[in-house]
């Protein structure tokens, strides 16, 4: 089970976001900087939440922003955004959100492996807290069990 690479460009720490849309847009921007998606992908991630609600807030403080595969996905990618001030997504139990993981997959098969790896990385109870406090992309990669520089 292999996570997509998380280059420095895909990490943005202690970002100021006015609301959940701005926060999700940051996760999309980070995926775009890393070359994984076109900028429109961010709006599709926002549409998923508009359509289905804040279920993407899968654990206290953590949102897994994502959309279906599409032509705006150039290759599989992962981004991590931490917020300077937590924002509410409208989730009944898991608000406010401090960490947004952006996920882009090109097809369903590769996605299952990535997500399984992601679930593994978050098995530690304090992973979200440690991510929220991370001061560098290296630290984020270490928490997620990714090799340095990847």
């Amino acid at each position, binding site marked *: 089970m292999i996570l997509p690479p998380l280059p420095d460009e895909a990490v943005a720490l202690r970002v100021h976001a006015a609301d959940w849309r701005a926060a999700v847009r940051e996760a999309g921007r980070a995926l775009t900087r890393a070359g994984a998606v076109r900028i429109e992908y961010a709006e599709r991630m926002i549409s998923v939440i508009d359509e*289905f609600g804040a*279920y*993407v807030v899968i*654990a206290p403080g953590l949102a*897994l922003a994502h959309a*279906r595969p599409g032509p705006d996905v150039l290759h599989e990618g992962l981004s991590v955004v931490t917020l300077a001030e937590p924002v509410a997504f409208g989730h009944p139990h898991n608000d406010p959100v401090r960490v947004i993981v952006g996920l882009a997959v090109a097809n369903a098969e590769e996605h299952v492996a990535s*997500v399984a790896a992601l679930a593994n990385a978050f098995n530690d109870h304090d992973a979200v807290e440690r991510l929220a406090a991370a001061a560098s992309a290296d630290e984020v990669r270490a928490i997620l069990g990714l090799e340095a520089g990847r």
Partner: protein
Amino acid sequence: MRIVAVCGAGIGTSAILKVNAERVLDRLGIDAEVSASDLEGVARAASDAQVILTSTELAAAVRRAIGRNYAEIVEVRNFLDLDELAVLLERSLG
């Protein structure tokens, strides 16, 4: 025994739920097959399932989507908390 994990887009969240449910079932020694589905496909995916795992946010939509189906809808708060999942799954399957 069949279990379906459901999310809005069928990508990401339902897959996390599936992976963690499989882990918990393994730990509990319960033999069950877990699949992932989006909201659109849930009626078909859950036609022969005993349990549907989803988030509180989507539970009402899942209920509407499955119509006359007797699968139990189990609402999961924290998709990453294996202990919560174990309690929920033991309650509905045990």
